[in-house]
């Protein structure tokens, strides 16, 4: 695992027009777990812009599941088990304490060893040592956050993941497709264009991104390799070329084409470039997304008169309507192995657009976002816990996030311009 840390995506086309995302937590869960991440002791000289423990604290805080104690409110800053007095932490009503040490080595590398303790039972729950270069401080920190999160919630962490999104200036004359860490740090512009870019979609291996570029002659679908920065034209048929979605094996792309006269779902094999038509209806069919089994596609269709979500079995051809509640349901994404749909929902004609989740086994629809408006483009974290989406807030397009259960909310405002079309990347290890 440590070796994998050395593989860091590094694509840098342009450093201009950065959005500089920050995170403002607006709602966490009531029964959040009290935890203290004590500042890690650094042995040797090092210049950390953001310290490892600080990044870990921010990750845990942002998840909404933890009440993270500020280092200022701690009675002491122990760095080893010998200096750890559980009674002090019980006094501070802390359930868990994290201690850590950082050893700097001469070749620009550093090593972090940390321990997670259960204060009540006075025992160590987890210990881990990670090593990397100074450019990997954030990777290593997010990895620690993920391990602690998983140990205490039972759910795999997704802090060490990337998000892709599109930024644009207010005049809408410049569009940048960027990728950043899940906390908005280390933004990199991977494509800059005078044409509108939308619907970024990650390949399951996290090494390629498909997207739509709306040129003067119409929409085109491209796939860009992140390591080389090379973009490849996948579809430029007559009419629409849009809404790409990688199959779970990464070999195919589902997309929307209107070359046969009407927006329909197609699947293109990325190796043979053969297109296969999936839907056939005079209504609009678009926004395909794969079920994890690779044998079903969900998509938006206007065949009932208003957009609703449907599921098609690619083997049997069986078609099923999934959404009935609400005036407008579109752009569904799956969460938690397909148990939940997360979608754009307008309850009544003329009403607000919000992000909603639909429990497919129980048929329950829950509106998740309420303090933003014109919500769109939901994208689910790979652990199925959080949904990032685009919304209007104070007359600007910003990113926001909400947990699939609706309990945790945060905003991701940018310092300038509009941010749209978030796409949460897969696990990187």
């Amino acid at each position: 695992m440590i070796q994998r840390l050395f593989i860091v995506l590094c694509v840098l086309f342009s450093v201009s027009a950065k959005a500089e995302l920050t995170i403002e937590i607006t709602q966490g869960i009531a029964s959040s777990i009290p935890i203290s991440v004590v500042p890690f002791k650094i042995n040797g000289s090092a210049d950390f812009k953001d310290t490892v423990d600080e990044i870990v604290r921010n990750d845990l805080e942002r998840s909404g599941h933890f009440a993270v104690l500020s280092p200022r409110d701690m009675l002491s800053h122990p760095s080893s088990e010998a200096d750890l007095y559980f009674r002090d932490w019980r006094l501070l009503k802390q359930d868990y304490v994290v201690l850590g040490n950082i050893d700097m080595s001469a070749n620009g590398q550093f090593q972090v060893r940390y321990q997670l303790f259960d204060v009540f039972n006075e025992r160590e729950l987890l210990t881990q040592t990670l090593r990397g270069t100074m450019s990997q401080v954030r990777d290593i920190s997010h990895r620690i956050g993920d391990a602690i999160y998983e140990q205490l919630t039972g759910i795999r962490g997704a802090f060490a993941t990337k998000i892709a999104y599109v930024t644009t200036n207010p005049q809408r004359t410049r569009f940048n497709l960027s990728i950043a860490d899940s906390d908005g740090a280390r933004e990199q512009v991977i494509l800059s264009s005078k044409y509108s870019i939308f619907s970024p979609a990650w390949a399951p291996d996290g090494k390629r991104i498909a997207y739509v570029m709306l040129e003067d002659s119409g929409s085109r679908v491209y796939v860009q390799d992140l390591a080389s920065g090379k973009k490849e034209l996948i579809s430029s048929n007559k009419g629409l070329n849009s809404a790409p979605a990688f199959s779970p094996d990464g070999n195919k792309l589902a997309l929307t084409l209107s070359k046969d006269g009407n927006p329909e779902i197609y699947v293109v094999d990325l190796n043979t470039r053969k297109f296969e038509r999936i839907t056939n209806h005079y209504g609009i069919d678009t926004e395909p997304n794969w079920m994890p089994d690779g044998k079903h596609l969900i998509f938006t269709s206007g065949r009932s008169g208003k957009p609703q979500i449907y599921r098609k079995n690619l083997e049997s051809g069986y078609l099923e309507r999934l959404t009935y509640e609400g005036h407008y349901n579109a752009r569904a994404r799956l969460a938690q192995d397909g148990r939940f749909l997360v979608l754009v929902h307008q309850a009544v004609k003329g009403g607000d657009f919000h992000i909603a989740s639909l429990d497919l086994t129980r048929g329950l629809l829950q509106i998740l976002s309420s303090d933003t408006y014109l919500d769109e483009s939901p994208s689910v974290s790979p652990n199925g816990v959080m949904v990032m989406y685009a919304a209007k807030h104070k007359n600007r397009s910003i990113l926001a996030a909400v947990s699939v259960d609706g309990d945790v909310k945060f905003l991701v405002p940018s310092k300038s311009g509009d941010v749209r079309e978030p796409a949460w990347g897969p696990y990187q290890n």
Partner: protein
Amino acid sequence: MQNLGWNKLFAVSLLSLAIAGCASSGGTTDEAATTTNNSVEESQTQGVPGSPEVDVVTEEQAAMAANPLLDQTVVYFGFDRSEIRPEFKDILNAHAEYLVANPQARVVLEGHCDERGTVEYNLALGERRADTVKRYLVVQGVNPSQLESVSFGEERPAMMGSDESSWAKNRRTEINYQAR
């Protein structure tokens, strides 16, 4: 934009192909793109000044081109709708007559949406808005080869606001003449 000098041009019975450049009535967003294209075209035109082509415009064509309805090149739609509203049929009929009488004329029909709803559904809806106008014109006798449709979804709004009056102006199909 393109109505300036439209009548004057016919008064002198000369139709220069150069007016294609001012046919774009797009919003603020695509002006940059249009400007770039024009400057490229302009830089290509310097050189041998070959004899310009002269079109003789018939009385009938001139009368038709003077129809003020031809100056109206945008039709608007209801939210999530793509059917032609009755009040725009006269405008479309005027364009249909013109296109039938001028088979060399070429039009790009640009479908647009307001910002509400999803980006992709709006892209598809924009195409429907362009296509219903296209079908309407074809039913009126226009040769389909004169017409091209393209959707810009919600990406090139005519108005930037987030209110009903801006949205109403953004749900539209623009009739853009590439050649008259």
